[in-house]
């Protein structure tokens, strides 16, 4: 009885799936799915190597500080960094006094309540504060940015496939729309106010190219601030903001695996030893 019932259920599901397959196959042949503009012109992130790649990777602190400078002078005008606090900057090599000064001189103030009147007010951030947001709320952000909300950057490099390379590629990837794109997809012209970028999922991005000229930022350590250099530096910085414990993780992993290899080797020898009398001929 079980087997007859099973046979009928199996026949039904398998049969109907094959019918669905045939219907789909006929549709596929008679009306092949249209190729989309994204499918044809979207590009995967560029190949770029960073100091923190691989199991022995380490952050380059000078690079993180340069990237922080790019964030501070360029990105932070529109993008928040809400999961990072000023105190965290210790992780990229600043000391307590420097962090205090960075917080105090930050261009955006931290919202607070006036301790005397109880009215809403602002004050200079202190090291324990998180980076203040550039816009009071999403409505203000949209009003200032052509109806787009600049996303928070704290986790950006983990929120995209190949995030570090993605950030670098996106920043350096702005270009005029290719002529062959417009020829093939005349309706896909980049709308007014958006910017063509093949590394962006739907190809048209509200953000204008943020880094436009070499020397836009003046690095304190003498590194030449080319657009490519600045893009790499800020991508490295945002990798750190998304994964500040990356170095701890790699170090802990090395120690753990070293320990486990020895322990497993011993366990294997114990196993062989205990089984010695059972694994030979009688």
């Amino acid at each position: 009885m079980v087997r007859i019932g099973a046979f009928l259920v199996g026949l039904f599901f398998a049969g109907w799936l094959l019918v669905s397959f045939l219907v789909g196959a006929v549709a596929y042949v008679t009306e092949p799915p249209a190729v989309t503009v994204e499918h044809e012109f979207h590009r995967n992130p560029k190949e770029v190597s960073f100091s923190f790649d691989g199991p022995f990777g380490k952050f380059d602190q000078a690079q993180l500080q340069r990237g922080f400078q790019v964030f501070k002078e360029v990105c932070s005008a529109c993008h928040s960094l809400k999961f990072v606090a000023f105190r965290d900057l210790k992780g990229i090599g600043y000391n307590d006094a420097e962090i205090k000064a960075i917080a105090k001189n930050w261009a955006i103030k931290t919202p607070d309540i006036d301790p005397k009147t109880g009215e809403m007010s602002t004050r200079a951030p202190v090291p324990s504060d998180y980076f203040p947001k550039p816009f009071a709320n999403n409505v203000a952000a949209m009003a200032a940015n052509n109806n787009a909300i600049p996303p928070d950057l704290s986790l950006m490099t983990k929120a995209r496939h190949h995030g570090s390379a993605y950030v670098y590629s996106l920043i350096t990837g702005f270009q005029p729309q290719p002529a062959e794109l417009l020829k093939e997809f005349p309706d896909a012209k980049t709308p007014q106010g958006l910017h063509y970028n093949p590394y962006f999922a739907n190809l048209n991005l509200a953000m204008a190219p943020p880094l436009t000229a070499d020397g836009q930022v003046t690095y304190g350590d003498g590194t030449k601030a080319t657009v490519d250099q600045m893009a790499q530096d800020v991508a490295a910085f945002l990798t750190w903001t998304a994964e500040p414990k990356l170095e701890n993780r790699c170090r802990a992993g090395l120690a753990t695996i070293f320990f486990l290899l020895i322990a497993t080797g011993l366990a294997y020898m114990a196993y062989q030893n205990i089984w010695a009398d059972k694994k030979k001929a009688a």
Partner: protein
Amino acid sequence: MSFPWAEQYTPKHPAMQWIDEKLPLPRLVYNAIGAGYPVPRNLNYFWNFGVLAGLALVIQIVTGVIMAMHYGANTQVAFATVEQTMRDVNAGWLMRYAHATGASFFFIVVYLHIFRGLYFGSYKAPREMVWLLGLVIFLLMMATAFMGYVLPWGQMSYWGAKVITGLFGAIPVVGNPIQTWLLGGFAPGNASLNRFFSLHFLLPFVIAAVVILHIWALHIPGSSNPTGVEVKGPQDTVPFHPYYTAKDGFGAGVFLILFAIMLFYAPNYLGHPDNYIEANPLSTPAHIVPEWYFWPFYAILRAFTVDFFFVPAKLLGVLAMFSSILLLFFLPWLDTSAVRSGSYRPTFKKFFWILILDVLVLGYCGGAPAAEPYVMISQVAAAYYFAHFLIILPLISRFEKPLPLPNSITEAVLAKYGKTGGEPVAVPAE
């Protein structure tokens, strides 16, 4: 409950004798996973995965309980508290990555454990109850994993919750009220998050309880073995301790090495980047995909694209997806062959490997976007999945002519190592 030649627990120390009189817990452990449990001497490495699944469960419970201390089950703060755990809690990043990677590894070992059961016929009499309880654990794991994935309240959390509870919405007439009741609202929200957290905390302990039943049911007939021939005498078995504790110790070491490589060097590889974006009900991700361990079932769900008269395709997909797991409960009665081990079943073995390939193809399609050619491939693959268990397997077990079985476990072992020592001779029928 055990073989007559099992070693007996005889406490020597007076304190242990005292405990044994009042509460014979050490005796229970001794008989369950100690020297008092005789086990076939010929188990291969596939028999390690039961213990490894237990280890994975313990890792999940320990890391999970610690994470719960730092988690806020509220849509306003859930995402931020998870980030705080990653950044400000001592070793919080380790706990979270261990928990997320650990979930994947739990499924990996459980899938291998199920694979073992399917190939070596572990589900057959007299071990049907072991198999059924194992499936209950598997279902509980799926529910737990799904609810756990919602807790970080990222984009995939939110939209995954919406899609999965939407499956219940496909039920005619009562579907929508059931979905609303499950979520505690019309869309995933604070009520959903709170109940998912509560159940995600509860279910692992329910799993632990069913694991105890699973082991209890196993100990009544004793463990199966790669030949599928039952134990005939003391020469066929070794005490679980030290023989299999030593082997499981080595297995656990290998498991932990692989786990550590993934955990420390590719902790986000098995996850989805979208879950690092906070949940946003107004923005639907381009591709909503569940975690990799649900992909084969997700592919079956999406394979139904044509209505069956008045039954909508979506409902068919939901029924098929649940059936694809529930049919495993009938397996002991669908496969009627008296031979357990696939090693002695030439026809079964061929179809078995087709099934494994089929499930891998389904998994691949389930992770791919719902577009052609993936839908067409998953339709054929899903058709084979149902045909295999419900049609082919009962037919094979009726018409197949199995290979000759060894007379006993010991005979098979001796054939492997040679009767007179020296060079091992050819392994029979493997």
